[in-house]
């Protein structure tokens, strides 16, 4: 059941193509860039995947003008190839961005756990476009990750994307360490007047585990804005064919004795199903007095959405065309 080799997800997603204009107008960020000095936490569940939001923010930032800093993408759950394939459908060339130093990719997946004896560890970095900027190896603390990010962040209004931080916990790092890392990265990004975007898994099944629960609550307490995607409470609303596809299989292995880290998850999202997105203000946003220095956040609301082949469609709760 548990494989020692972390299997990368080869997602076969035909969906994202032209970018999400509806999502842009919903979030209403000025110049489609997330607000400065803000921490945006994206929470998703097994029934609803939050990756589309990450790809959206990534492509928006890369398409933005020269006034913004670079993007640092830390891949803890996927390899660079995955992002570049999706990015191609969204109209951005990640390999080119990486070569022009607009994007830095830190591979925290392939060597984070005990490396298999077959492959060299750590690999020497070839200068091909698809090679990551830095590869992290397993260490006792998370300091190398912090140092790698610190070296990679350049310029004002940069963007740091962590995809996704639940894997850190499942890899055997303690709650205090993982939360401490997120806090340290938040401080780092604020120095660059940038934005930190983290993806976190917040399933109901994980809430019964005190370690996972403490981690999710701690990270959510650090957020200015929370974008939460989940399936509908009433179950999936399927399309006409009623098909259920087993889309991905993710197997995470932990090398340590931590009993909580053996998790096998698989996602069962039917295509074109209606899912729910909630926009929530975070705890850190409550401390700002209304003034010009406070980040402009979208209105808290809950919407239903459907990911189609080329775009995503948003509608108010209960008014999708399958219902009315």
């Amino acid at each position, binding site marked *: 059941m548990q494989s020692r080799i972390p299997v990368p997800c080869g997602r076969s997603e035909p969906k994202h193509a032209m970018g999400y204009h509806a999502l842009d107008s919903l979030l209403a960020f000025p110049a489609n860039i997330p607000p400065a000095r803000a921490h945006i936490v994206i929470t998703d569940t097994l029934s609803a995947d939050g990756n589309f939001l990450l790809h959206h923010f990534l492509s928006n930032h890369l398409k933005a003008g020269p006034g913004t800093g670079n993007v640092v993408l830390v891949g803890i759950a996927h390899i660079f190839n995955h992002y570049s394939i999706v990015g191609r459908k969204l109209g951005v060339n990640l390999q080119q961005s990486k070569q022009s130093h607009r994007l830095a990719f830190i591979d925290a997946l392939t060597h984070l756990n005990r490396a298999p004896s077959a492959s060299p560890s750590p690999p020497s970095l070839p200068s091909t476009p698809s090679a990551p900027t830095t590869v992290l190896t397993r260490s006792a603390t998370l300091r190398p990750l912090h140092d790698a990010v610190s070296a990679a962040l350049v310029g004002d209004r940069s963007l740091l994307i962590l995809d996704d931080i639940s894997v850190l916990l499942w890899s055997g790092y303690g*709650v205090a360490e993982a939360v401490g890392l997120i806090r340290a990265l938040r401080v780092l990004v604020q120095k660059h007047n940038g934005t930190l975007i983290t993806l976190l898994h917040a399933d109901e099944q994980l809430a019964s585990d005190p370690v996972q629960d403490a981690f999710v609550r701690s990270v*959510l*307490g650090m957020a200015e804005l929370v974008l939460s995607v989940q399936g509908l*409470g009433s179950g999936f609303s399927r399309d006409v064919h009623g098909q259920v596809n087993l889309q991905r299989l993710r197997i995470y292995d932990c090398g340590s004795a931590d009993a909580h880290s053996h998790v096998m998850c698989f996602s069962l999202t039917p295509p074109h199903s209606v899912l729910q997105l*909630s926009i*929530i203000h975070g705890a*850190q946003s*409550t401390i700002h*007095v209304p003034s010009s220095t406070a980040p402009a956040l979208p209105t808290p609301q809950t919407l239903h959405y459907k990911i189609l082949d080329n775009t995503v469609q948003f509608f108010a709760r209960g008014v999708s065309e399958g219902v009315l």
Partner: protein
Amino acid sequence: MPNTALHRLLAARDSSPCTLICDRLGTSALPLLREFAACALADDQALVLLCTEVDPESFVTELKPLTKYQRSLRCSVTIVDAYTNPFGWEESTGGDKRHYHITNINDIRHVASVVGELVKKVSSQRCTIILDSLSPFLLISSHQTFQLFKKLIDLTSGSSPSPALTIFPHQRASPNDTHPTDTTRLIVLHHTDILPPITTPLAATIPNILASLSHLSSATITVQPPRTTDHDREAQLLRVGFVAEEQFAYLTSEDHRVDRGVVVEVEWKRKSGKVLYETNAYRPDKSGSRLEVVPVSTLLGLEEQIERVIVEEPTVSKSSSRRNITQQPDPTANLSFNLSLTEEQRRARGNVVLPYMKAQRMQVSNLSFLFTFRGYHHGTILHLWLFAFWSFPSDALNPATTTASGGGGSIYYEPDAADDFDDEDPDDDLTI
């Protein structure tokens, strides 16, 4: 509202050496913490900020426009920064003596000693210590966090703190007798739903951290969102008999709505030993930067208006229906029998003699009569009473009333003509 417990705590008008503010994920108490800081600065107190979850520089910057005094905040605010560089991963930038950086948050004892030193330096004036969140310390070690908390409470005593760091669990902070309010007070924020995971067998035996903290605090403030009843949900429940289950979510779009206000429950242990429980509320004021304390009903005002609407009964006439909008419907209307009284019946009811009234009146006069029977065997007394009853039928010798106990629990027994006292043993004929 000047007389509420929350207002008195904010303004430091009464003594509360340690105030513990408890919040949860959906309702943050950070605005309340900011308000405490603003009130302390407005009151000319020195402020010591120990920050672990909020950037202290931005916290102080937010405070600047809230204080009416023009003098620089740098003179009155000392920062112990455990937020910027808690693990020492960044190079320390030096900084001034009023902004002390903690570079190893795992050494909680060191944090306690640093705060102690800084408070000693400002001991000449009144001082407020604000600790933004114990959660990062709790995730490292529960018992060391408790010791940190205890050490901070020791700082709030009126006398200068002892240099030794030995902590005796039973020792409480001595009350400040010379000043009506506290020289040094402590305000701590605690997230009650972030529970430290149990990593060692010893940790499982430690009592609940919230109970330990609130036991040591003089005041505990718990923040909650204003509870609004969902009328649609109740109506649906009445109509179909079930409601949809709430879907699990850590946060919903209804959370962190600062404009809706927050309800607080205050538990305040006074020096006199009395414990005061109050439910107050606060919300942002018109400018949005300060908080105003309001009655709880103001936040839930909409609910009260809705509760007053009562469905009118169709048989009630139009003129009385208008009256009944704010009154309960009359239960004696529309009955087939008569429940009302005529004047004559009312007078007759007033004149009815209640059965034991005379007996109760007689009780007082019979007490002196009873004293003469003391010293006799109980059986003798009973026979004497019975004899007295039969021989002297006056009310003064009524045996039922001659009892030593007054008031409740006394049994009034008047044997009537049909009663027959039989002295034979009723179990005589048994052959067991």
